[in-house]
């Protein structure tokens, strides 16, 4: 006969609750992690999305090693279609499209990740503080968030980039990060609200822990999957925004980017000349990265929230 501490059971009286359905709540943490991994590998969306993104990441990292050409370097034959010598052909001014493509891909990943970090950090700070502390501070932060949210990002970026002329990927990324945090702040704030009312948080609060500690030790870890999803979406959004900025000529002009490729292509009549190898790959790559990230996001959401699983 099993004997467990009857004290705990004493408090439960007629309802002696366990969920005897034999589902995952009975499993120890190790098993639970295994179960998460199992679902992860089974989830088509996650697998497909992740594969696409990783593939492009590999190209971005390894690609430049496979060529000696500099993306801005001139001197190659003009307007050549793809061949075994020039894998993605050349531009009308004699630049190597492959070199431009892989360096541009690198730039996309760099800007995307930095911008996502900046926006994520801002969003987390404002979201956590507002959601946890509440009151007048929350009101102020919410108003701030709403204002920045309503202002069309691109308009601001255009003005700022025009006047301040973005010189490097870093500044472009920071700029994008500074304008795309509001929706993340909102989402995190909402989640923090609901977590803050839970018992274990109240317990931590009562035991005298400072707000900062409670947020870092209790709230954030319980939202880790949600934060991760938010990061992925921010990353995708940043890649798109960066591409648009670069296309408008507002990105760093000394750094090759996919948006810049499309810009140069269009202004140099690549469309009329039918130089598809110049303007199709960059946009395709962006679609693939962002699409892959979005699909990954959905897959991960299904894994983290069993309710959404539609098996």
């Amino acid at each position, binding site marked *: 006969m099993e004997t467990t501490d009857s004290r705990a059971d004493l408090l439960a009286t007629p309802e002696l609750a366990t969920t005897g359905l034999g589902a995952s709540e009975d499993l120890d943490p190790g098993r639970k992690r295994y179960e998460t991994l199992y679902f992860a590998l089974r989830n088509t969306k996650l697998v497909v999305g992740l594969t696409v993104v990783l593939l492009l990441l590999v190209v971005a990292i390894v690609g430049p090693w496979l060529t000696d050409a500099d993306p801005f370097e001139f001197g190659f034959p003009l307007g050549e279609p793809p061949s075994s010598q020039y894998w993605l052909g050349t531009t009308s001014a004699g630049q190597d499209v492959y070199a431009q493509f892989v360096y541009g891909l690198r730039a996309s990943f760099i800007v995307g990740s930095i911008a996502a970090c900046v926006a994520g950090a801002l969003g987390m700070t404002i979201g956590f503080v507002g959601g946890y502390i509440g009151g007048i501070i929350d009101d102020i932060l919410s*108003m701030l968030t*709403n*204002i920045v*949210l*309503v*202002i*069309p*990002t*691109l*308009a*601001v970026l*255009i*003005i*700022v980039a*025009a*006047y*301040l002329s973005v010189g490097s990927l870093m500044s472009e990324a920071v700029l994008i990060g500074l304008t795309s945090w509001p*929706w993340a702040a909102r989402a995190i704030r909402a989640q923090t609200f609901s977590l803050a009312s839970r018992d274990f948080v109240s317990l931590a609060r009562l035991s005298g822990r400072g707000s900062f500690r409670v947020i870092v030790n209790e709230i954030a870890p319980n939202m880790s999957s949600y934060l991760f999803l938010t990061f992925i979406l921010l990353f*995708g959004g940043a890649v*798109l925004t960066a*591409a*648009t900025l670069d*296309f*408008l*000529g*507002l990105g760093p002009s000394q750094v090759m980017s996919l*948006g810049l490729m*499309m810009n140069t*292509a*269009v202004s140099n009549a690549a*469309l*009329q000349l*039918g130089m*598809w190898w110049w*303007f*199709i790959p*960059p*946009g*395709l790559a*962006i*679609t*693939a990265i*962002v*699409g892959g*990230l*979005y*699909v990954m996001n*959905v897959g991960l959401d299904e894994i983290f929230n069993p*309710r959404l699983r539609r098996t």
Partner: protein
Amino acid sequence: MTRYLARKTLLYLLTFFVAVTIDWAIPRLMPGNPIDGLISRIQADSTASQQLHGYFTESFGLDQPLWKQYLDFWRGLLHGDLGPSIAYVGSTVSELIWAAIPYTLALLVPAIVLSYIAGNRVGAMAARRKVLDNTALPVAYILTATPYMWLAIVLVYFLSFKLGLFPVSGAYDFSLQPEWSLEFARSFISHWFLPFLTLFLVSFGGWAIGMRNLIIYELESEYSNYLQSLGAPTKLVRKYAYGNAVLPQMSGLALALGAVVGGALVTEIVFGYPGIGTLIITALQNRDYFLMQGLFLLIITGVLIANFIVDIAYVIVDPRTRAGIQGS
């Protein structure tokens, strides 16, 4: 209802104020004297440049104390005076903007409205039918991940350059003048179609995905469960689910407006469509500060107004806000 709208109005007024201030402040924060930059562009001789210098200094009001500059800016704004254009010498910023707005609106309004309606419908259908869900949804994801300008490039390349189905650029044929005639209308529409399609397709993807997720969520809600337990036909359950899903979707509309406007800008550039987008590129390339300022304000104002319209629509659609209850 009034409380809700009042809160929103306050937000927009505040935002407008902040935006105008940013707009006014930025050129003055820029390194160097803006006027020198202007004059060097115009490349006038020394006497002319002296006069121009004086003119611009006065226009910019740089000889005035800062606070007066700020107030003058507001005053000019409220009079509709946005200053002269530098890129298009001889025209005022207001004139240029007024000429370009109709084209941009002609793209934006139908694209937003139609993509919203169509996206919601398809999304709702995908939520019910597994077959549609497995085909339409991946397409929607790809669409929403596509950068606007690239889709524009692809469409114009294949359908205009390669297949010659549509014209390549402009709003209408060069030989025609804007007028109320069938010939002009036909030319206008054939020029309008591809840029519109670009905006429509990308936005459509986003709405479809959003609606599909919302409907699934609503179909699993407790009121749906209850109705089904009482034997209500799926039609009624779906109707209620749709009605509930529309609300957050509409809030999403307000948020998405900024993104679509950005998309319209780059699409116009690819198609050489004479709207705000092309104007912005010209302003950027020519460092036309007055024009850029004016355009920035225009975009902000436009988005704020559109947000307000959506808020009013929300009040109409959500009976709870109408009844004055503090709902969501």
